């Protein structure tokens, strides 16, 4: 080691890495396993969106209080965690082929029909965001034994919201409402499949719908796993928020948990609304943006293109939902539910359809550019 004194300051010449640094580097360079790739490319880069697809497959990942965490190092060269992660590029699989009778648009993806709908169930309408279509359809599917149970997102039991299994109408209503924070709902799916549950329905974000599509191509048991899911309802999503940093900030702003309800009204409101026991409070959307999950900026799917039915809000029509019916199953379920008086439907105004296509296209473009920058 050479050191010299310059203008009264002791300068240390570069003496190379310390012993500990060398050990660390050796460990990193030997990190070539499947899980290491996931940790290096997604988790350590802060890109994980907490979809939960990798959680519950093995003991190496946990979802806890709003975060997906690598608990220990797995040494396998291949792993389902990497294969299912929607943040890992997988050029090698063509995601599920679509039948030729669907419209396949570059903006909204494949669909058979786009309509607007709203629930006719008073109890659901009271609790639900906008039209209550999702809760109504799930309740309906449970009642008709189309599905036996549904993977939804709970309100969080002292921690961040997490996935849960709903088996009854009251379970479903307990989960109604938007969360805006990532909640690893697929963990609950993985656990349900492990206990042998069949005929599952699931409500999830676009990233989660994509993960479910990857699931079919995953490992040795992907096919079986995928086959236990019969209904996929995707939610429109522009981004999700990081629960921990968001609520740390909100707590500093004097907000007291638990959170009863959140809302981001369609533009041009530009606010994030949050309801606690102290009532509703509103924060400028720009104050909330720093807490958007970094990985969401890579996403190119706003309308949950890999689902049977995608549901979102409609600008200017508060009591209704936009509904994209993408598969035969989705189409049939909506028709039956309408016939049985569970929901009512109407045509989506042209203007709204154009706005939707534009917003969705913009997200694709932004995602594509960001993906290029980050990778």
């Amino acid at each position, binding site marked *: 080691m050479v050191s010299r004194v310059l203008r009264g300051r002791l300068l240390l010449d570069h003496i190379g890495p310390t012993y500990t640094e060398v050990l660390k580097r050796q460990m990193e360079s030997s990190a070539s396993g*499947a899980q290491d790739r996931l940790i290096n490319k997604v988790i350590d880069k802060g890109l994980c969106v907490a979809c939960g697809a990798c959680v519950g*497959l*093995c*003991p*190496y990942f*946990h979802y*806890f*209080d709003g*975060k997906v*965490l*690598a*608990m*220990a190092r*797995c*040494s*396998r060269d*291949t*792993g*389902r*965690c990497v294969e299912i992660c929607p943040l890992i590029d997988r050029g090698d699989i063509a995601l599920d082929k679509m039948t030729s009778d669907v419209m396949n648009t570059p903006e909204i993806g494949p669909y058979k029909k786009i309509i607007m709908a709203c629930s006719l169930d008073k109890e659901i309408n009271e609790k639900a965001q906008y039209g209550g279509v999702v809760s109504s359809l799930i309740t309906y599917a449970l009642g008709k034994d189309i599905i036996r149970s549904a993977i939804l997102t709970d309100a969080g039991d002292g921690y961040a919201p997490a996935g849960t299994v709903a088996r009854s109408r009251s379970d479903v209503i307990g989960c109604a409402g938007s969360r805006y924070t990532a909640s690893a709902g697929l963990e609950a799916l993985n656990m349900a499949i492990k206990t042998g549950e069949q005929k599952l329905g699931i409500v999830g974000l676009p990233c989660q719908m994509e993960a479910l599509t990857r699931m079919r191509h995953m*490992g040795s048991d992907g096919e079986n796993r995928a086959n236990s899911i019969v209904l996929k309802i995707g939610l429109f999503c522009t981004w999700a928020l990081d629960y921990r940093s968001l609520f740390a900030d909100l707590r500093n702003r004097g907000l007291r948990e638990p959170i009863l309800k959140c809302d981001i009204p369609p533009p041009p409101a530009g606010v994030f609304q949050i309801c606690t026991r102290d009532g509703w409070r509103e924060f400028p959307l720009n104050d909330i943006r720093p807490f958007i999950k970094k990985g969401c900026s890579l996403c190119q799917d706003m309308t949950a293109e890999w689902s049977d039915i995608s549901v979102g809000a409609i600008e200017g029509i508060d009591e209704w939902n936009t509904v994209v019916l993408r598969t035969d199953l989705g189409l049939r379920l909506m028709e039956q539910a309408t016939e049985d008086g569970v929901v009512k439907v109407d045509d989506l105004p042209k203007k709204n359809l154009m706005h939707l296509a534009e917003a969705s296209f913009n997200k694709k473009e932004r995602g594509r550019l960001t993906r290029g920058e980050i990778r």
Partner: protein
Amino acid sequence: MKGISQRSGDIHLLLQGNEAIARGALEAGVVFCAGYPGNPSSEIIETLAEAARDLPIYVEWSVNEKVAVEAATAASFTGCRAIVVMKQNGINVALDFLTNLTLSGTRAGLVLVTCDDPSGISSTNEEDARIFARIIDAPLLEPTTPQEALVMTTWAFELSEKIENIVMIRSVSRLSHTRTRVLINELPSFDPRPHFDTGLSFHTFPVVAKHKMRHEKLDLARVLFEKSSFNHYEGAVRPELLIVSSGCAWTYVTEAVDILELSDRVGTLKLGTTWPLPKGFLKKHLAKCDRVLFVEDVDPFLEDNVKSFGADICMEIGPKEYMGKASGHTPSCGEQTPASILRVLGRLFSVDWQDHAFMDKVSPIVKDIAPPREFGLCPGCPHRGSYYAIKTALAWDDRDGFVSGDIGCYTMGIWPTGFNQVKSVHAMGSGLGLASGYGKLDRFGFHQPVVTVCGDSTFFHAAIPALINAKFNGADVLLLILDNSATAMTGFQPHPGTGKTAMGTKTDPVDMEALCRSLKVDVEVADPYDMLSTAKIIYRNMQQKGPRVLILRRKCALVEGRERGFPYKMRVDQDLCLGEECGCDRYCLRIFRCPGLVWDKHAQKAKIDGVICVGCGICSDICPQRAILREERE
């Protein structure tokens, strides 16, 4: 009465070094014994506690070493012989009192035994307690064998009373834990009549005068040392090399001299009274030859002191070549062994002592195939559950948190058996002291959560002041007391929380929770076997401010196994076990690392090692397949 407390003498017993020291104290009529457990010293107090069943003596495990010396000193001040015992680290704790005590002086014989642990075989450090004899101006005796340890201990009480000051005995692990045939002597009658003579006073003033008296007492000891039979010379009249040695290492020296057939070329000077040096005796033998080799455990204590004395008298004895730690002839640290001594003597006398043919044949093969045996927590150890919960909570929290460790079995948290969670370990109670410092760094932008662990015995020993410090200064601290209801590492000695004293009498246990609550520190209790719930509690506490205490309570598995036994017979359902497949990757073996769970090579699945597994059942909770089954034992 049999064994250690038998009154009759002239009998050979198989005694451990520590037992011999205890017997030596009994033969001196000791009535007050105190100490704090610590390898390799613990058996001395344990042996005396056992003797207390038959003899009218008092024995206690004190809360820490400083209090132990203070309590024993009280006995000395009232005219009762007393012994105090500790490991090398203990002297550090007791030193403040000792530096003052040797100024005030003592009355009835008071002997301090320190058992050093060369190579730190069961310690966090390697420390030579002999230098403290110099610091406090106390006479120092170093026994070489259990037999000598017995005699020296008895004599140390006489010496202490003669010079009216405390006397130190230094043992080392190897001596303390050596068992050998020892001749015991008759016990005196025990008839203590404690009385504090108010005509006397024990304090340090006037300081300089007392300091001078202290030196005079040491000079008095020196005079006695000159004629002590604990020092002797063996070998040639005009040796080519004089080996100066003390303690256990001397036994290796004599054997090495035999093996190398050097008995008529070297002289061995064995010193048993190593501070103050018996100068006249030394001078006589130093004059015999020009080359001097020092062989001693840990620090160059004899080496430095003899060299310094040699400089004083160099005009009389002439220049010498001194060899030892400073010259690099002997290792500068670590335990002396027969091999280390053969090596240096072989080199100095050009004698080839090694069986090269044999070594060349087996060494490379064995080196190649024999992996080291990793340190591990016992099967069923509650600390494994505690560290698993801590690791889980820290990973969930994801702010790069870490554990500030302390001293006990749970120190092994620095290794894979504790999932490498512990990032620092120093002295007893220091984990919390450090944590109280980390807990004040937030104002500078430090936001890594720190969890500190300490054992139940360690908590009482030295963590309480640190907890008060954290409370006083408002530090963000989460203390996990790993309460296994024993001083487990050193052999299950009772402590203030166990409700039992060293002598086995029942006592009102100190209530840790109440103690913490009296400081208005939040206290919770959790079960380390319930790893997931405990992790949640730790996580929740990590999100809060100010000092908090969480007690993770489960009896030490060895105690539990002895007292009640474990409820389960464990079994791996190999049809469910995934082995190395995705979804497991041998999770229970690679990550959880319990010695009771092993790999079944034939089936390529995990299995229970029925010989090792105790049946605590916690591994069942970590298996992703629920393939590890708890079956009730009949």
